[in-house]
């Protein structure tokens, strides 16, 4: 028989719940916290005092409520004093941001990605982190860093097992960064970019309040971040969600992963650009140029956009049948593709998706846009703090 949770555990959980609430929702009055968390007033007061004592939140009198009575104090996350570094390692660029508690981007830098292994990619990240650290207030506290990467990431230690479009195999990305800056970064967590975008949109974007979502992230490659029943579905080792490598066309083109006819060979950037006869170009601007040309009436571009839209619809319909999500989000360059070919995507989904699985599915574009990867990486870094704020 298991004994009930101890006083200590309950307090830790309540502290975590309160801090997470303030982190996700932003400034909120004590009175609202009392009703939202279902704890009594004095408990909220004591928990807030504990969190304020270690500088995680601050309290202030509200500006003016226009109502009678003593106004309830407003609890605010200390975004400028508690922060994490977030990095996004993409095929053609690297972005680094300093993100305060509450999901506020305080500082942001970007550079082209140097070719080569993780050691090379880590160099500009470490430089940016060191630069940003110079302007930080001395009393501020860094929680650690999170990195979003387009590749398969081992959950237990952040080893990038495979980054087909980065040319990486078994690259210890997290360790490489921490080894460079052991004094600045207490911990470094690594996650897949689609998973982290899904996490960010679920925490503070278009998917707030939705427990079954699929975030389709596309650039050169395509991956999905899946949240089912409110939990991130990342599989046994952390490699799940590689929908871009579903084989949809056994007679199709060879894929970077070694297989043939993977979904990303039909809906990735290269597929669109090839179909539009622009093989030489790359990147999101090239994708937008095709969409623009299609909108202006360029017949080749129109066919290319429709063809990719058709394939996108095929795959999404299969995913909808498997996961029965309430929301499918198209991020990365798939946002542009979806908005330009929604008629094809919807038509395919409506004709292949089972009526019961598709009836409530909403197709959306991200609310956080390109910041999702950085905010998701920051969430990863904040996770431990939110689980045990005083630990």
């Amino acid at each position, binding site marked *: 028989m298991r004994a009930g949770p101890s006083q200590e555990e309950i307090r830790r959980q309540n502290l975590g719940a309160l801090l997470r609430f303030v982190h996700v929702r932003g400034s909120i009055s004590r009175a609202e916290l009392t009703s939202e968390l279902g704890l009594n007033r004095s408990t909220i007061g004591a928990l807030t005092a504990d969190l304020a004592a270690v500088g995680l939140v601050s309290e202030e009198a509200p500006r003016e409520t226009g109502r009678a009575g003593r106004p309830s104090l407003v609890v605010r996350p200390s975004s400028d004093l508690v922060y994490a570094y977030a990095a996004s390692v993409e095929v053609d660029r690297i972005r680094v941001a300093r993100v305060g508690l509450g999901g506020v981007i305080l500082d942001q830098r970007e550079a082209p990605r140097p070719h080569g292994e993780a050691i090379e990619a880590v160099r500009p990240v470490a430089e940016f982190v060191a630069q940003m650290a110079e302007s930080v207030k001395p009393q501020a506290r860094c929680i650690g860093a999170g990195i979003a990467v387009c590749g398969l990431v081992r959950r237990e230690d952040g080893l990038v097992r495979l980054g087909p479009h980065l040319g990486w195999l078994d690259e210890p990305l997290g360790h490489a960064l921490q080894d460079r800056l052991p004094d600045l970064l207490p911990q470094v967590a690594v996650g897949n970019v689609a998973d982290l975008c899904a996490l960010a949109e679920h925490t503070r974007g*278009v998917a707030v309040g939705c427990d079954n979502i699929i975030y389709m992230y596309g650039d050169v490659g395509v991956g999905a971040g899946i949240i089912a029943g409110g939990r991130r579905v990342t599989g046994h080792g952390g490699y799940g969600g590689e929908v871009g490598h579903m084989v949809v066309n056994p007679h199709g083109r060879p894929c970077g992963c070694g297989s043939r006819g993977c979904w990303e060979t039909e809906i990735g950037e290269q597929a669109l650009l090839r179909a539009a006869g622009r093989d030489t170009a790359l990147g999101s601007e090239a994708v*937008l140029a095709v*969409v*623009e040309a299609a*909108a202006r009436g360029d017949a080749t571009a129109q066919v290319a956009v429709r063809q990719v839209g058709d394939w996108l619809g095929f795959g999404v319909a299969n995913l909808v049948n498997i996961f029965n999500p309430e929301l499918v989000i198209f991020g990365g360059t798939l*946002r*542009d593709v*979806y*908005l*330009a*070919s*929604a*008629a*094809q*995507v*919807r*038509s395919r*989904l*409506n*004709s292949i998706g089972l009526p019961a699985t*598709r*009836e409530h*599915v909403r*197709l*959306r*574009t991200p*609310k956080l846009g390109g910041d999702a990867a950085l905010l998701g990486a920051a969430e990863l870094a904040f996770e431990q703090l939110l689980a045990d704020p005083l630990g």
Partner: protein
Amino acid sequence: MGTPLLELRGINKSFGPVQVLRDVALTVHPGEVTALIGDNGAGKSTLVKCIGGIYPIDSGEYLMEGKPVHVHNPRDAASHGVEIVYQDLALCDNLDIVQNMFLGREKKSGMILDEPTMEQLAQQTLAGLSVRTVKSVRQQVSSLSGGQRQTVAIAKAVLWNSKLVILDEPTAALGVAQTQQVLELVRRLADNGLAVVLISHNMNDVFAVSDQIAALYLGRMAAQVKTSDVTHSQVVELITSGRSGTLGLVEEGAAA
């Protein structure tokens, strides 16, 4: 599904001997985008002007939130929370964003205009729509891009606690990046709880953001269907021939 925000039944409208709308029905739910589509001359604009109180209807029922109402002029429509954003946007180039949003309905404190309140409300409205492209609400409208103008016109419609916003071809004449932003804005309006009617000729726009599609054909409502139940080609058939398989007008109606 709950009570529709707007329900029209058996709407007829003639201009002299020409019957433009014939027994038209339309339902619009809060939180949804209802796309209103149809060929040129199908009656889309007339229907919208009837909803907005610019044209009185000859006969038919007009219900807001389940209750019959009488709409004789635009002021009546506005009092029921109906706002229309026309293609030309009706913005004044020589005024700034705040002045445009409150044009004709300025807030006053005593004798003078309450500029701080209006500015704050304008900022709140734009922030509520997650609009990041507009730098200052004191910018003159003449300095804005086409997409930003559309955004201001939509924000102006949302400002008045409106319940139903009707958008007439909001993405016509915009570039791709701006079209994308406006589409996302249209979607966000509905996701924030408003009822939205979107008039569009662009099938992608319709499929990208709508929940329901209402297709007019020669002044009659061919069909109102859920976007999740139809394909592109079915919708094109509804527009061009008024029917598609079991959907749409019955045979003799289509032949008329």
